[in-house]
């Protein structure tokens, strides 16, 4: 059996990568992908701990989380499409109408 520390290590790496991408990238779609990375790293944690115990709750949570992530991606891409129609770009640096 693979020790749980390795799963945690994997999910940490994924989380850090996602975070790094979020902070450095400017493209809206890349940001969406980074957010997916963050969510999935959490999912890995959930599944790993669940498999380590005689309990399926974590895996059920992970399924919910994936469904939510799909919905969130749908909303996010819809926003990006309408932003593109409005501004002709999805570079988030240029989209600052609500700034002071």
């Amino acid at each position: 059996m693979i020790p749980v520390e390795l799963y945690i290590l994997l999910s940490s790496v994924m989380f850090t990568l996602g975070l790094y991408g979020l902070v450095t990238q400017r493209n809206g779609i890349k940001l969406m992908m980074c957010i997916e990375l963050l969510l999935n790293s959490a999912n890995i944690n959930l599944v790993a701990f669940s498999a380590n115990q005689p309990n399926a709750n974590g895996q059920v949570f992970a399924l919910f989380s994936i469904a939510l992530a799909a919905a969130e991606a749908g909303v996010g891409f819809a926003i990006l499409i309408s932003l593109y129609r409005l501004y002709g770009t999805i570079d988030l640096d240029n989209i600052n109408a609500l700034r002071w």
Partner: protein
Amino acid sequence: MFSDFAYLIVGLPVLAFVLCLFFGWHLPRGGGFMTVLATFVGLIISWGIYKEMPALPNGILHQSMPWFANFNVGILVDPLAIAMLLMITFVVTLIHTYANAYMDGDPGAARYFAEAALFTASMLGLVYSDNLLQLFIFWELVGLCSYLLIGFWYRKPSAAAAAKKAFLTTRVGDVLFLLGIVLLYNNMVSLNLHLAPGEYLLQFPVIYKYLALIPPTQLTFVALCLLGGAVGKSGQFPLHVWLPDAMEGPTTVSAMIHAATMVTAGVYLVARMFPLFYAAPNALTVVALVGAFTALFAATMGLTTFDIKRVLAFSTVSQLGFMMAGLGVGSVVGAASVGISIFHLIGHSFFKALLFLCAGSVIHAVGTNDMREMGGVGKYMKWTAYTMLIGGASLAGFPLTTGFFSKDEIIVTAYEYGLAQSFIPYLFLVLAAILTAIYTFRLWFVAFTGEPRSDYHKHESPWLMLGPLCILAVFALGFGIVAQGGFYDYVGTNFDHYGVNFAELGVIGGHAIEDAEGVAAEGEHAVAAEGEHGAAAEGKEGGDAGEPWYIQILPIIIALGGILVAALFYYLHKFDPSMITSERDPIRKLLLKGYYQHEIYTQWFAEKVIYGTAIVCNMIDIKIVDGALNWISEVIVAFGGGVRRVQTGVVQNYITAVMLGVVVLVVVIEIALQVGFV
């Protein structure tokens, strides 16, 4: 039976006001007949109440209902009020009738009659209010109507300015009046009275009843504040400046508001509150001095004016001064002075309304106010000339006319006051009476005799105008001789209906005249009381006997002498005014300039003092009050402007901040765990 319809005296003119305002446009002569009718029915009801009053409890009509808190609305008709009600409804009915002809063809006739009806309603309401608050409300309404009617020809800049001046000047008095009411109310509240049901603090009977309990100094404050209101409304010095300017309105307005009725409201207020003035130390002295000074001051200005209406306006101010002085000298004759003063008020309203309506008739025909352009009008307008002669004779105090009896009585009472306290009011009043006779007949001779000095339309006015003139002339001539003695007793005993004890109040006020009645006059009063003992007794009988013969016939000499002087100068032309004065004469210049009142009131006081103060206040307001607020808001805005830079709008910055926050949080928690806080 008439008493049950007392409210209609005010109600009908209000109805006429509404009808004229909305439907007058479609009716002949602006619906003026409704205004006449409403006032005339008021006259009938008033007469009915007058006949019924002796049978009522206490001989007065008192109806009241609660309003809010401890205030009420009510009707109080006592001899003082009924005298005013009858006079107002009678004179105003005639003036409205006259106005039907006078205002015919004016595009604003409907507006005129609506406002005139509202004025009538408020004046009548003022007179029979049963409490001070209600009186004040009608008082303000009367002021509003005065403003509206002075500015009736509002497209004329001088009329608009005069209306504004009248409104602002009387406002000074009104603020004092309101202050007086508040002071009186506070004092009444602090007495912790246990009022019977149906009694309210500001009701006149209640005020009369508990007056003696209020501290005398407070009474003086209240009295002087109320006097301030009266001074404003009745055009007494120093708030008289608006009244001559008020002649910008139609002549009927001058006759109705600025001669016969509204301006008497101030005198009426003092008469109504006479027990309070009587009980307040020194208040009546002030009333007497203000009145006497105004009487003389205005009379001198009447001498040099050439505008026919302004002469009459100055004469009104002067005669109102007589009435005030008549009340003021009441400290020696007690409540009898109310009878004397109100008698002059009623007589004055007859002959002054008459004089104004005659002047209106002349202006209507000639088309100018300037006497210098008239001359010889009497030849073409016989009725107007003779009725005006009667009015003038009455104003001048020609023997056996109404003005003779009423003015004579005030002067004689002032003489009694002189014996007891000071001859200043007497002196002023006598001089004013001489001048009155001179300027009145100067007016008549210059306008009605001689040769026409300009080309004017020579025609007599229509009968709708002459009718009221003739009726008023009859009253100006005969009212005095008929009503004389009985009237004093009727109105002079007004306060007996409320059981006001003037002997007791006199002790508080320091007058103590009725010591024969058994009230001991102590110390300082004793000397005065001795001197006026006899006088007081006669005062009650109308002052017919007791004074030396030369005092008795002095008014006759004054009147005849004044008329003679005027005739010598302006009719027979034996003398010419230039023989006694020259262009450089300082007194003549002073009079022509109207005592530099325009310079003092407008150019110095209004434009320098008030405007200067306003500028300083404005500076303080902008620099300090607004400045502090602006400074605070500027600091906050600047702070916000700095802080908002944090919100870059770049999502990455936010994420970084969140991350850093989490890291800090983790570190803090870790340290806390290590140290053992948690």
